[in-house]
């Protein structure tokens, strides 16, 4: 304090206990609110950031999946958003999926099942898509026929016996019969059974 202005002495006051307590409570409250607020905000921010990064990454990763893939449900879940920009997109994507399934040598049942899904989505005026579905079905039948033919030819007399048929041979061929008689006597039943076995083998491998 200055002795030049003794009048100012009365301005010099001290904080009383009540005021001090009140102020310190206000400080504690502000400190606690700050602590909780920043923690809560931090959590929300972190979550928002993770979601903001995860959603587009997952959506992008799911874009080229086909039924049976892990991320395929995400692709289907995102479809309403894609549909907003392109209403034909779901049908086109289903057809493309059938083609990819076929290219990947997926089991026939899986492809046929997905063809049904695609047919439900493709409308009458989308002839290009219908054609593509028909082409896949055609290719699928060709592949089946090809397999059948391949199995038949593998059982033809004179051809070398395929390794996988060896399991069939002992069942159909009695031990006492001569080896030379084997092809002619067993042909009708063996062919059928071999075909079935091969197809089952295909399914197991593809599945």
């Amino acid at each position, binding site marked *: 304090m200055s002795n030049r202005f003794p009048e100012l002495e009365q301005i010099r006051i001290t904080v009383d206990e009540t005021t001090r307590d009140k102020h310190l409570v206000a400080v504690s409250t502000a*400190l606690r609110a700050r602590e909780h607020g920043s923690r809560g905000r931090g959590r929300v921010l972190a979550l928002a950031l993770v979601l903001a990064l995860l959603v587009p990454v997952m959506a992008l990763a799911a874009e080229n999946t086909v039924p049976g893939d892990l991320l395929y449900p995400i692709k289907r879940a995102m479809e309403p958003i894609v549909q907003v920009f392109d209403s034909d997109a779901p049908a086109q994507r289903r057809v493309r999926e059938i083609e990819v399934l076929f290219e990947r040598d997926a089991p026939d049942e899986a492809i046929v099942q997905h063809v049904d899904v695609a047919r439900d989505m493709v409308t009458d005026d989308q002839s290009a898509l219908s054609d593509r579905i028909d082409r896949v079905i055609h290719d699928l039948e060709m592949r089946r026929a090809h397999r059948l033919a391949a199995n038949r030819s593998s059982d033809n007399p004179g051809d070398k016996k395929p390794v996988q048929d060896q399991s069939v041979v002992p069942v159909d061929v009695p031990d006492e019969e001569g080896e030379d008689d084997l092809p002619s006597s067993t042909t009708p039943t063996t062919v059928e059974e071999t075909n079935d076995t091969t197809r089952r083998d295909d399914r197991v491998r593809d599945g």
Partner: protein
Amino acid sequence: MLSLTINFPTLGVWITGLTETVPHPLDGHVAGIRTRSEVAFRAVYDATADDLISFAFGMLGDRKTAEDVVQQTFVELVKGAHKIKGDGRSLRAWLFKSVRFGCLDEYRRRSRRPEIPHEAIPDLPVDSDPLFDHLDPSLEAALNSLNKRHRTVVLLRHVVGMSADEVATVIGSTRRATYAVIKRAEARLRDLLDEYRDAES
């Protein structure tokens, strides 16, 4: 030493140069304030509250409002604690700046509020000494006649007991300009106090 600082600016600069190297009592609490430690806040409050409330009381002439302004200053300190830079001196200057802005806000609020004539205020039961809560009328009249800048520097200088350099930091001015403002404010206050005392007698 303080009058030397004002009367001989060159010597004052030299003295200030010496005092700046001296540790400040608040130095040890700055880190605690930055990390929002309650202990540090309490320590800083106890070390500064009297000065801050006296300054606000001188600025506003009303103890209750002065206390509210100081409380708000500490709440603001909690919010902006991570931005506090420098040492204890800077922290003290920050607190006074904040109280100063709080008082200026209060002036603005008062100017928007319609003036209530004294006759209209009923005699309420007084729970504290009115003389203690309000300034002496002649002193209040003298202070009210000063402009806000002059009032600020006079109070910081003669009630809080700050050096001219500290005052310069609080009002955000240069040292040289602050010396001049303090000089003019002191002369003006002297005149006003004499004037009001003569009028009273």
